[in-house]
């Protein structure tokens, strides 16, 4: 292929140059699919009005124009080029998806109100409710950070103790095995009895959900440390605390991170439940509030926010992990 190109270039450079710069097809298709979404939104009449039609059409239309520009300009190298090459099929699919979604809901009513909402409906929620949603995000993040922080820290310390000490494991492991499989929500009644405020109870629920996987994985990580490392440490004059902090803990870190990832997902799953417990703000509270009033568009819009938040935190945790576990690169 490249040989052929070189041959052509030698014969007729001008022809070859034109050939090496065709339109960039993935961007072209993406532009077409996004344009379709804009056209469907703007030109077809709505069965039921949802609002924000114009804004949606403009946004999607701008996307289509941007892709068209990229198809012509065709960046050759660098970060933009790599990203677009990789996600090109996704951009096309998103345009197709938006078109079909808008068509099946707002334009035809095949998927009826109030159970389904078109993309314009979600956009309308963000446009009209953004202040309240921002406050809810703040409250949810506060609850999550407190719950996950307390849960992960507690789970980590107990996990290390369970993995290290036979006495601790003798009493702790059976209890952990009993508590582990119980759904976190089953603790709600007891929680209310023990905690003075509903906020404390909510923090406890989130902490429990994130702490248990961290605890289980850390303890199994510490328990499975290569015994020869301890022999080396003892031989070199290490005291028990050194063996724990400098050998057991770093050696178990890959396990701990698996636990942290699991804990992060679980904590997000129970966040909604925790906020139903009489909270006044928060994404979970907002979802349950809107569900009661059949505001499903608002529910979907909030779920999208929650997914994005969770994905962002997972990404953050991944970058922390990659930093701390560089030494694993040879093994993974």
């Amino acid at each position, binding site marked *: 292929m490249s040989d052929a190109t070189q041959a052509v270039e030698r014969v007729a450079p001008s022809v070859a140059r034109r050939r090496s710069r065709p339109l960039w097809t993935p961007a072209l298709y993406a532009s077409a699919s996004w344009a379709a979404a804009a056209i469907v939104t703007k030109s077809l009449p709505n069965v039921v009005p949802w609002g924000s039609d114009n804004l949606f059409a403009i946004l999607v239309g701008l996307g289509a124009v941007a892709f068209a520009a990229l198809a012509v300009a065709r960046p050759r190298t660098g970060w933009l080029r790599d990203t677009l090459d990789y996600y090109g099929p996704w951009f096309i699919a998103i345009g197709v998806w938006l078109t079909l979604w808008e068509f099946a809901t707002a334009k035809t009513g095949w998927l009826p109100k109030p159970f389904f909402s078109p993309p314009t409906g979600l956009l309308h929620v963000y446009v009209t409710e953004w202040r309240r949603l921002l406050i809810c995000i703040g409250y949810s993040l506060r609850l999550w950070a407190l719950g996950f922080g307390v849960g992960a820290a507690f789970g980590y310390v107990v996990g290390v103790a369970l993995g290290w000490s036979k006495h601790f494991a003798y009493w702790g492991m059976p209890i952990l095995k009993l508590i582990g499989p119980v759904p976190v929500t089953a603790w709600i009644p007891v929680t209310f009895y023990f905690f003075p405020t509903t906020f404390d109870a909510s923090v406890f629920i989130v902490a429990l959900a994130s702490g248990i996987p961290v605890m289980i994985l850390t303890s199994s990580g510490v328990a499975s440390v*290569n015994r*020869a*490392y301890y*022999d*080396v*440490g*003892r*031989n*070199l*004059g*290490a*005291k028990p605390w*050194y063996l724990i902090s*400098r*050998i057991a803990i*770093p*050696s178990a*870190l890959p396990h701990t991170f698996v636990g942290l990832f699991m804990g992060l997902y679980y904590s997000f799953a129970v966040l909604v439940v925790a906020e139903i417990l009489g909270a006044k703000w928060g994404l979970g509270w907002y979802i349950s509030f809107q569900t009661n009033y059949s505001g499903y568009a608002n529910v979907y819009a909030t779920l999208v926010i929650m997914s994005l938040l969770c994905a962002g935190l997972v990404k953050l945790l991944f970058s922390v992990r990659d930093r701390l*576990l*560089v*030494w*694993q*690169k*040879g*093994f993974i």
Partner: protein
Amino acid sequence: MTAAATALRVEGRGARRSIAIDIRNLNHAFDLQGSRLEVLQSIDLSVATGEFVALLGPSGCGKSTLLRLVSGLDRPTAGSIRADGVIIDRPDPSRILVFQDPTLFPWTSVWRNVATGLDARGVLERQKGRVDDALRLVGLTGFALAYPHQLSGGMAQRAALARALVNDPALLLLDEPLGQLDSLTRLTLQTELVALWRDKGFTAILVTHDVEEAVLLTSRVIVLSERPARIKAEFTVDLPYPRHRDNPELVALRRQILGTLGLET
């Protein structure tokens, strides 16, 4: 080898530390799910200060167990092991065991690995230079910041040696330290081991099942029997260093020892 010797002279650390080991009527057994496995039986062995002794025997006979007992990582079932007259009842950085597997900590750099002993005893801040010296001694100066997975087998074992030597041990217990290396690296490291021993003057006990290695490196070869291990024979290797593996006396001795092990050549 010469590099190691030069490095040492430059440091001017001539303080020779060594220790005498006295093993009396030693017996050791493992409890394996109720059944008792006799590993060592009536071992009597004295190692003089600064001596380099090899323990040779069929695999699984209990050589490594004997080394662990001398290091103090395990306690014997019966009998005594003394270091300069004092009963060994716990591990101590003056007697360091080097394993067949380098067992470097994979989560930290070569430098931190070598520094482990000093760090564990809380003297690293004052004696950082010793880590660099030890790395220079084994020729790993350029790899201080590397992670263990980036080292070759020979380099990893060198790092493990540096991790032992940084503590200035009086006794080095070598449990087949070259067993996993390719033959060329093995030959190089054999020479380096002898050089280190001669420069530092520590007492050394080497477990191996390579007869040539035993006669090439050490001044006395102890042959152990099948499990439960007893001392079966003892050979003095009265040859000057540096030795050459083609030396006829050495070859003859090697044949004699192989005969004791039941392997006529």
